């Protein structure tokens, strides 16, 4: 049974905007990055999985539950961190997270205990007894994560968890997400428009654009090697290009880097020998990986 399975999922908003377009995907447990530009349909996708939004057509199941008909049962095992603000400023984090645990079905005593534990886990200590209106963005994001975790869900759906955070805050939030996914055995879907962030924590990537699925694959296959060899030399890049071209190999200079098209193993030895013959100051030889950004170009 897959963690999440959708079939031809489509969402059209009144007014003709198509947020999701015939999206079919099957995902196994792990840390899944949901990546796409703003407005690509990430939030819509997550909200449909939670049953917050009705799809126009198509089906979706999460943890084996149909999101349309078994929403209430399903939501007991799902945690959701929305992108938007959702914290009442005059309530303390302890009270708020404890209440949220109760609405997830935890008895009162267990709710209090879990709230304290999960707030400590996300790194909120004495502050948790203060009203949340005075919190920094970083602390608010932590409380938002805590309320999603408080009922020990099987699946966490995080919508732009690093929004508004400074670089240090981003690192900490991403580390928390990674720990949640790897150590606690909770499956995570994390939506972000920042590829650089998402590739640091995810093991599977789902790329969407304009509501359509571009690709769903393990992270490694997104960054597999390309047929380009990059040779950095401190000087004489043009001499190297001339020598390689004379030997019948396609090569172009890009500043101090020479990019060589790789069709077989032949260029490796030839580059080494040519650089040695010309006596060029070599910095490195590297096989280029495909960057995630290329997905959206």
């Amino acid at each position: 049974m897959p963690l999440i399975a959708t079939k031809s999922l489509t969402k059209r908003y009144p007014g003709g905007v198509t947020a999701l377009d015939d999206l079919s995907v099957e995902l196994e447990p792990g840390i899944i990055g949901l990546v796409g530009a703003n407005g690509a349909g990430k939030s819509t996708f997550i909200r449909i999985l939670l049953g917050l939004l009705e799809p126009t057509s198509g089906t979706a199941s999460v943890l084996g539950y149909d999101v349309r008909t078994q929403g209430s049962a399903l939501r007991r095992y799902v945690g959701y961190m929305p992108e938007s603000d959702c914290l009442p400023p005059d309530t303390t984090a302890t009270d708020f997270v404890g209440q949220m645990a109760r609405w997830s079905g935890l008895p009162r005593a267990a709710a209090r205990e879990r709230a304290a534990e999960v707030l400590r886990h996300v790194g909120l200590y004495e502050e948790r007894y203060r009203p949340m209106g005075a919190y920094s963005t970083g602390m608010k994001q932590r409380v938002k994560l805590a309320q999603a975790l408080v009922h020990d869900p099987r699946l966490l759906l995080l919508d732009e968890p690093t929004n508004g955070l400074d670089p240090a805050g981003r690192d900490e939030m991403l580390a928390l997400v990674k720990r949640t996914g790897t150590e606690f055995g909770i499956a995570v879907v994390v939506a972000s428009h920042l590829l650089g962030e998402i590739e640091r924590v995810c093991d599977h990537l789902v790329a969407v654009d304009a509501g359509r699925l571009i690709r769903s694959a393990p992270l490694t296959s997104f960054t597999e090697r390309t047929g380009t060899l990059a040779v950095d030399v401190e000087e004489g890049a043009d001499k190297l290009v001339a020598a390689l071209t004379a030997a019948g190999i396609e090569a172009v200079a890009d500043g101090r880097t020479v990019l060589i098209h790789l069709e077989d193993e032949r260029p490796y030895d030839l580059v080494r020998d040519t650089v040695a013959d010309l006596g060029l100051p070599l910095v490195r030889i590297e096989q280029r990986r495909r960057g995630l950004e290329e997905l959206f170009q």
Partner: protein
Amino acid sequence: MTAPAAPGPVGGAATGSIYDLGYRGYDGPRSGRHVVVRALLRQSLQEAYGIGRGGRAKVAPFLLLIFNAVPAMLAVGISAFLNQAGGSEVLEQGIPIRHDTYWSLTSTFVMLFCAAQAPELFGRDQRYGVLPLYFSRVLTRVDYALARVGGLFIAIFIVALLPHLILTIGAVLGAPDPVAGLQDELPEIPSYLAMTLIGSAVFAGVSSVVASYTPRRAYAVAGIIALFIVPPIVIGIIAALSVPDIAKVLLLASPSDVVDGVNGAIYGPLRIGNETFQIATLPGWVYVVTALAYVAGSLAIVLRRYLTVTV
């Protein structure tokens, strides 16, 4: 905050970092919808009185609860005094604070309670964006709406019922013969229970409608007050300008007048001192049916709001 240390084993050496405690799952019971709805109902009732929030949140609801009960306390006190002075029979007729007059005398406090507290229950969650967190949990949208309306209703019912209980207790304890006093008082109980139930339900219903559609607190407060005091004024003007018979029917469009009509249907004309006021000019059942229609209609509108609101 410092960067998290490398996580150790569960219960590992205490290095001062909380991360070493490790994450523990939850294997305890998880209640279903019905338990959660009851919990939210109780929470809503508490929030209606500012319980669980700062001291300032409690000021308005408790002041209004007390203000609404002050006349009953005074009446009981005066009766007790007169009983001791031996002039009870004569002067009791002069005290207009009785079960049958209570709603009409003090419903302004009940209305103010609605205006002050309904926005707390309905507006906050919308204003601060908390609805997605509720709706992504066990409750359905209908559950949430019913729990909120129910909590407000019970809160208002307590405000409305408290003075009647004070009057009853005062009458029983203040009577020369408490058993006879209780016997005199018993027939009153079903009447004021019915009156306060219907009145509270109508007031809770219409204020829920305004508050659920108006996340901004100030607008909701103004809207609720307006809904109770503007229709009688407008209808009064219409009555003055045209046929009074039309105005009688038009009064059904005013929630506060409908509840006063229910009071008339239960107790008959309002009697204060030597004067009587005929409030219910239509047959009594018309007011009761209209009141129930207000309750049902309000519930339908509130449910519609929460079924369609985008979160």
